[in-house]
């Protein structure tokens, strides 16, 4: 068996007295696309944020390629470790003062230590991959939501991460802009990127996921291939959640 890229062991997180994650364990294999679904408040976003230590977990461990994440001895090392995870935010979080190109280039320059020219050339390449070659000099405010999210994906990919994490990447988009972002994500999955995606786009989960995880109350309540989880959910929670969705 191929060693898992990410190994999560008994991860927990509480905000004050409020337990949000209550012991989540999960292995993600190389080139696997895992989609996490569940009602809001089920802990799926917190889980994702604990993987790259945007949130400090209360307990448990995360390993990336076998090395523990978050136990680095210096800020520099933990920052370098974090850049192994590409993270795409619900609200894009592009840097509004920088052009699309510089949004992508800044990490290459400041974190990877490339020269400015090198970083900008590579940024252009990454932006072409998400079909934004005609928008490189625009600021985020001059781009549509779908374009902004694609810049954000390019920014994450430029760092050559081992894994891509997507936190509800289409939830803040107008309906007609959702597909362009999903298409980019689908291409990425097909190209063999290891991905963990939190989303409410069930069609994406059905078409692209290798495995779907249903979370409820801070634990994994059920998981399996999409056909199984959508076709014949076993847990009462997943049945209820999916029934609810089809009525929306």
């Amino acid at each position, binding site marked *: 068996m191929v060693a898992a890229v990410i190994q999560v062991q008994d991860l927990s997180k509480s905000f004050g007295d409020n337990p949000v994650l209550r012991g989540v364990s999960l292995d993600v294999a190389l080139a696997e696309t895992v989609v996490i679904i569940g009602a809001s408040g089920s802990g799926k976003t917190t889980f994702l944020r604990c993987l*790259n230590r*945007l949130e400090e977990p209360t307990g448990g461990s995360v390993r990336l390629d076998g090395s523990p994440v978050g136990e680095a001895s210096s*800020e*520099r090392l933990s*920052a*370098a470790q*974090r*850049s192994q*995870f*590409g*993270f795409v*935010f619900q*609200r894009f*979080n*592009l*840097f*509004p*003062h920088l052009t699309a190109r510089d949004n992508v280039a*800044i*990490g290459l320059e*400041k*974190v990877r230590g490339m020269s400015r020219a090198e970083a900008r050339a590579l940024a252009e390449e990454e932006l072409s991959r998400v079909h934004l070659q005609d928008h490189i000099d625009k*600021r*985020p*405010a001059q781009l549509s939501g779908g374009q902004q999210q694609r810049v*954000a994906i390019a*920014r*994450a990919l430029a*760092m050559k991460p081992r894994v891509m994490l997507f936190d509800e990447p289409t939830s803040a988009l107008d309906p007609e802009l959702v597909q362009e972002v999903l298409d980019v994500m689908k291409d990425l999955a097909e190209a063999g990127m290891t991905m963990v995606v939190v989303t409410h786009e069930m069609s994406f989960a059905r078409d692209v996921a290798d495995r779907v995880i249903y979370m409820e109350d801070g634990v994994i309540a059920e998981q399996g291939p999409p056909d199984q989880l959508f076709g014949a959910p076993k847990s009462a929670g997943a049945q209820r959640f999916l029934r609810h969705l089809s009525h929306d």
Partner: protein
Amino acid sequence: MTIDWGIIGESIPLLAEGLVVTLQVSALSAVLGLALGVVFGLGSLSRSRPLRWLVMAYVDFIRGTPLLIQIFLVFFALPMIGIRFDEFWAGVFALSLNASAFVAEVVRGGVGSIEKGQTEAAKAIGMRHSQILVYILLPQAYRQMVPPLTNELISLVKNSSLLSVISVYELTRAGQAIISVHFVPFEIYTLLAVYYYVLIKALSWLSVQLERRLPTW
């Protein structure tokens, strides 16, 4: 009461000489105070607790003591430990140190008000805390810092009149020199008020122009 118009006519060019010094002192102190203030402001947001405390203590001291005392400390006390300036540079130094504390607070407030998602996005691509401050948060805070920084600049220009007590030949001191010879306090102090007022109006106007020109997102 009669107004001595003649002395006013004579004083206008004499005071202009003092005005030049006021402008020099203010410009130098503003640049130095801004540079130090940005460093201190970022220091107060640093991850290092001792550094944060040091900056906080400094800001607290400057805000908690009169500028006049700070000027005397720089002018009289520093030479006792071997640091010697002439009155002009002592004045610039004192005003800069004073302004830097207030600028630090403006920078801290401005940078601190930038939305949390910006820090998270920068962290996610592996940037370190200090890089996030300098390359991501500070540039986004420039525009909103202009009005409060203008207020600090205006205070600085007005405060520069205190340097007359250590014989810096700035605008106020130049006026006092005329008064001591001709004894025309009403005419000269009124004229000084007009000089300062016009100068500060001009600065306010420049600040609005600058704010307009800085980009919005």
